């Protein structure tokens, strides 16, 4: 099993994500510089958080048009996993791996805080280690994280159970009071058409070690590892 974390100019959670995969979870993980393309086959590719190209133009827009994304597109078409975290989620949306767009937060400031999320589906390679409806705690840290999409797309996402996580309170209640960035239907994690891409605004790598206050995020990576183990 081998994972890749793709570093773009301006990525800043690349080392953090690598640390959790390689040093906490023991997965062989390569840090790949985006100019090198994907040098070999990987079971999963993680697009890490940060500010690729300084978020200039739109968050993730320029990175989504770099040559490495064609390699990652092929990897997606082969049914392999892609996890886009924060800026990586923005790239995944810009690259068309998932539906929707991450727009500037309703209160248009950067927002860094721990939040509660409700697990909306466990039938995905990223969420099998959760219980459906379980409330977990992960931190968010973004200025462009407000998920929007046209109503018919939203309806399809709901119908196909492709919403992975919504903001909620500590009891699992979803309401505008806990919709931290004003996302459509409080959505903050969404699966691609074939469920092998997850675009996730919260940071699971920041909730993967006891000392940092929560280990809920680790189960996203563990779900991926289990999926790869089973699928071979």
């Amino acid at each position, binding site marked *: 099993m081998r994972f890749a974390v793709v570093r773009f*100019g301006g990525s800043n959670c690349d080392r*953090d994500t690598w640390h959790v995969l390689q040093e906490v979870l023991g997965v062989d993980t390569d840090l790949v510089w985006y100019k090198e393309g994907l040098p070999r086959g990987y079971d999963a590719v993680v697009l890490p958080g940060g500010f690729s*190209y300084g978020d200039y133009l739109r968050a993730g827009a320029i990175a989504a048009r770099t040559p490495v994304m064609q390699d990652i597109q092929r990897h997606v078409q082969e049914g392999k996993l892609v996890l886009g975290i924060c800026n990586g989620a923005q790239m995944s949306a810009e690259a068309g791996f998932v539906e929707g767009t991450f727009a500037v937060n309703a209160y248009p400031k950067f*927002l*860094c*805080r721990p939040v509660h999320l409700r697990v909306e589906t466990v039938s995905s390679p990223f969420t099998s280690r959760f219980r459906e409806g379980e409330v977990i705690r992960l931190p968010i840290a973004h200025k462009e994280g407000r998920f929007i999409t046209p109503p018919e797309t939203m309806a399809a996402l709901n119908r196909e159970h492709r919403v992975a996580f919504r903001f909620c309170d500590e009891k699992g209640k979803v309401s505008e009071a806990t919709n931290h960035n004003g996302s459509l239907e409080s959505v903050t994690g969404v699966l691609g058409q074939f469920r092998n891409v997850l675009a996730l605004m919260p940071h699971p790598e920041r909730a993967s070690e006891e000392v940092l*206050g929560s280990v809920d995020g680790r189960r996203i990576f563990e779900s991926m590892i289990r999926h790869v183990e089973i699928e071979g």
Partner: protein
Amino acid sequence: MAGVLKDIPGGGPAGFMEPHGHTIPYMLSSEDLAHLRRELGRDLTPLETACFENLWSEHCSYRSTRKLLATLPTTGPNVIVGPGDDAAVVRFSEDLAVVVGMESHNHPSYVDPYHGSATGVGGIVRDVVSMGARPIALMDPLYFGTLTDEKNRYLFEHVVAGIGDYGNCIGVPVVRGEVVVDPSYRGNPLVNVVCVGIVHPDRYLLARAREPGNPLLLVGSSTGRDGMGGASFASRDLSEDSEAEDRPSVQIGDPYTEKLIIDAVLEMAETGTVLSCKDLGAAGLAGASSEMCSTFGAEIHADRVRQREAGMTPPEIMLSESQERMLIETRARDVPALSRIAEKYDLTWSEIGKVIPEPRYRVLFHGKVACDLPIRLLTHGAPLCQWETKPRHLARPYARPAADLAALAALVLSHPEVAGTEWVTEQYDHDVQLRSVSLARDAAVLRLDGAALVLSCGCNPRQIAIRPYEGTANSLYENAANLAVVGAEPLCIVNCLNFASPVHPEICWELEECIRGLGDMARRMGVPVVGGNVSLYNESDEFGTQIRPTPSIGLVGKGDVRTWQPAPEGALLALVGETRAEFGGSVLDAVTGCGGDAPALADIAVLARIRELVNSGSCLAATDLSQGGLLAALAALSPDAMVEVEGDPVAGLFSETCGRFLVAVRDESRLKGLPFRILGEAGGDGLRITAGKERLVLTAEELRRYEGTVTALMRG
């Protein structure tokens, strides 16, 4: 050798032309100019004048303060590099040293709050990176006019956004800060920044050229006309028209390029072929190249600098403070390898000159000499200034406020220095790099190499204004107290000395007293002062204000990994330390004008005892008493509690006597030997206080509302 270049466009004895058509007046005094003409035996070229104007400014040369700064303790067994380089290097563990710097970006942040504060972050981060260190944390103490005023809110909002957008983008977490509000800052908001980095203790870089003949590489952004004369700009009053007129002196930051520079320079440093390195900050390339090469000499070809605008003159090229640039000395054979790293990160680079054996600072422009000076005259020759001093005593007699306790409590708890700063801290990515274990209340606790790096910053300007010596010493103490309540010991101190103009004898006296207070307390604690900067002339003609003396402190410490906790239900709450009626400069004084004297020197012995108490596990929760006194500490440590306060309730709840702690214990025998009094018990519903015949009840809802004052003010 070619003749001295005389025909520089726009050059002339009265100043050089700005691209925007107005003239920057020379800041060089007639005495300095006469002194230089005597030394050199000739007139100065426009570039030479510009070099002196910037390098001899207070910002670069510390001419008013150097003698005073020399009195500070700067050495210690852990100090590897003390003051004088871009940042200090202090041993943290066997395999790790922390690299620490602190800087102000005050004047630019008034003129252009967003870019001014952003580039302040950029500058200090590059100072740390230029030592070969990875930046891992930032702290931002901020000082603003009162937030009920719309303009102050505008400045505050954009300063916070500037810090956030820059720090977030480069992936360095802002883990601490403080917000002080006082009318004296309305024309001169202060933006101070501390950056902490890490490096192997044997692998840091210095900004000292090592071998004559070596090429000098300029890496990073191209050079434009932004930030012209920033160093001299930083060393004068801000006048009424400064916002419009000085805007060209404010640099525009590009955090994306900064992130690339961080990654590129660290990758270059890893090759072992970077011999010396310096960030281009105040006084631009002239400052960086002359200071770095003052060990030998330098020859710079100004025309080889990559320019982003056409027709730039040598003074413009050499003094531009365009951001995100680094100067690197390497051997000629290593240039290709280093340039490949620059290109990997899409950074432009050029070889702009070399280290020379003669002690000269020479700048050529298309082959003609534009500057040829004895290098040490430029970098170390600024004559010191001696200002007159005159003590002043600002304490007013104390008059007990007329309002009842509940009204006073509401005023004090909703003062921005006591209320929560969530509106600020949520705009900073404080978790990136996965080290932030605990950022609540007193100090930031970051895991590092099996231990904790513990950070605190700030000072108490209102108390310092009344008693500069004690106030500064107590401010250092308070930072150490923040460390002590999570069991950590100080490693080193950095500071920013923000003052009004030292030409006023009273200000000069404040400056002297503050430095004396800082030095004495640092010596008593055995903690070295390893770096900092000085920002003078913080006064405003526009408002007729001078800032309060603001010797802002950054304290770096070490301890065990520990999370700050509030008091658990049922714990005994004890007040450690004697309370005196010391209201001068307190939050109560700020909100009621009650006056009084400022606190006397705190007792240093208590600090070590609190540390032991926390580390022995005898104490369930602890916080120190600072702004807002006991009431603020109770609201933070135990918002649900039943307590009784002895004596005068106003003093008991609101006095800010220094050196006191609120601790939660299961068993009071643990406090044996300490001066303490049990106040009551944690738990119940709301904060219930009995003080003599008076009773004060603060419900959870009220406490939440006071806590949210800053958010409510800023979100409207």
